[in-house]
């Protein structure tokens, strides 16, 4: 069995974001980078399948992006992936989901993966498209937003998270693609020995130009900071003072103390 996990490296969302000089993306200097949180669940699910099947499956971890994304691949390898594929692209941020999915499809088509796992979305773009686009391009079933995954006899019973706490239970035969929602499992922390082992695992580099065969269907025209709510009050200062001020506002504006 062959498993592909598609991951992305994203900035820490607690960062203070600035728009770049061209006004076309966020400024990438001074940002801390990490493995996209949703993708951690995808990696963990792949490793759990490998464990369930007695170590037989081979897990390939693929990431499109600049040199620094190797760190995200290495983390996924330290969590239990077998080999990494780095699609080198210094300008991946300018590509739309259709181009990114096409690049991955171009690679995956000849590899015949049985199971493909991705996060349901990235934390920076949040478009929730690449996984489904990839499955459609490969002509395999896609199940999105899963919070439950059980593999049995070549078929996966998955729970899809719907709105309001409702879940839909669906079943798909492999090969199939699943996009992972938070809470699907508990992603493991890479242990030090596994981090050391990951350094020795194969990490292939592919040039994006060799895989990109399409034109973008959408472009980012502009990046801006959101407008702040008009009339919202911002309180800053010493704790005791803040507490007094806030209680004063609540007395005036709400009925909680009446």
């Amino acid at each position: 069995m062959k498993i592909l996990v598609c991951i992305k490296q994203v900035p820490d969302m607690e960062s203070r974001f600035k728009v770049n000089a061209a006004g076309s993306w966020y400024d990438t200097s001074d940002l801390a980078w990490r493995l996209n949180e949703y993708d951690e669940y995808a990696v963990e699910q792949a490793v759990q399948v490998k464990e369930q099947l007695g170590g037989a499956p081979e897990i390939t971890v693929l990431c499109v992006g600049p040199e620094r994304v190797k760190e995200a691949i290495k983390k996924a390898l330290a969590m239990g992936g077998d080999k990494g594929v780095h699609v080198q692209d210094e300008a991946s941020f300018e590509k739309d989901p259709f181009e990114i999915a096409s690049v991955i499809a171009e690679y995956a088509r000849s590899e015949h993966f049985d199971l493909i796992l991705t996060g349901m979305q990235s934390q920076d773009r949040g478009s929730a498209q690449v996984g489904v686009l990839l499955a459609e391009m490969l002509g395999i079933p896609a199940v999105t937003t899963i919070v439950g995954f059980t593999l049995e006899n070549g078929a996966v019973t998955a729970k899809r998270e719907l709105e309001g706490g409702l879940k839909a239970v669906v079943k798909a035969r492999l090969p199939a693609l699943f996009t992972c929602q938070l809470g699907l499992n508990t992603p493991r922390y890479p242990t030090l020995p596994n981090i050391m082992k990951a350094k020795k695992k194969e990490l292939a580099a592919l040039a994006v130009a060799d895989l990109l065969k399409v034109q973008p269907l959408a472009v980012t025209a502009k990046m801006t900071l959101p407008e702040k709510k008009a009339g919202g009050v911002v309180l800053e200062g010493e704790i005791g003072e803040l507490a007094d001020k806030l209680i004063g506002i609540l007395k005036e504006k709400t009925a909680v103390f009446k």
Partner: protein
Amino acid sequence: MKALLVGEYREGKLLGSTYETLAFAQKIGAAAVLFAVGSEGDLPRFDGKLYLADAGRYGEYNPPAHKALLLEVIAKEKPDLVVLSHSSYGWDLAPRLAVALNAAQVSEVVDVRDGAFVVPACNAKLRRQVRPKSAVTVVTLQAGAFGLTGEPAGTPAVERIEAQAEGNVEFVGYEPAEKGEVDLSRAEVIVSAGRGIGKPENVEIIASLARALGGELGASRPVVDAGWVDHSRQVGTTGQTVAPKLYVACGISGAIQHLAGMKKSGFVVAINKDKDAPIGEVADVLVVADVLQLAPALVEKIKAL
């Protein structure tokens, strides 16, 4: 400009989000036709054409069939835009349509400006303007971003639609929401804990503030996923939608899914160390502070009142 709006039914009932697609069409001045896999017994109020596919036949989760049905309607109507909600249904179906149509897909649209679609980025800390380059564009709309100004009216002219498509995913059934310890939808005051509280031991600090204010403890998704707080206390699209008179968000950055669940609150206080946290956009008062210090101070002073 012509828009094909994709309505949503769940378990045979029309979802209110269908009307948000209508409000979007109104806002951009597009002529609209509706499509839904739903039931004759619960039709949307709409003065126009509705292509209705039978929910009994096409199932609640059958993307290849829903895609095939929509492609039929698209061939007939030749819309410029196909509009869905950014929901578990919409974000699942939209990319499938995009591939079939070789169309741009733009996710989670919150506004349209200078002919570009405005979408959030980086957990709503940034806004991105996206310009499609394809003849048809498939968009999904952020929940609550486009409200109707008035009650919709009218009776749609229903046209039945059918299509052949093999489902490659079998729908087994629904699993209902777990019944939990509390019904937050009735609470007048909710004090919610977010990831910013740091560790499970600190939940009690937030809970004591909730008690001091005569309210209930709520939580954001990461806190519930981590098992610190029961799922029944989760506020957001996948938890509960709440409308208290006072909502206090403690250490909650303000992910869109959370904001969608609490935006009907009367008065919103956010306590966060990060002045730029998106929760500040919806807060009436943003207190820039460490909630683990501020909450005990508040409790003490409230008790002394």
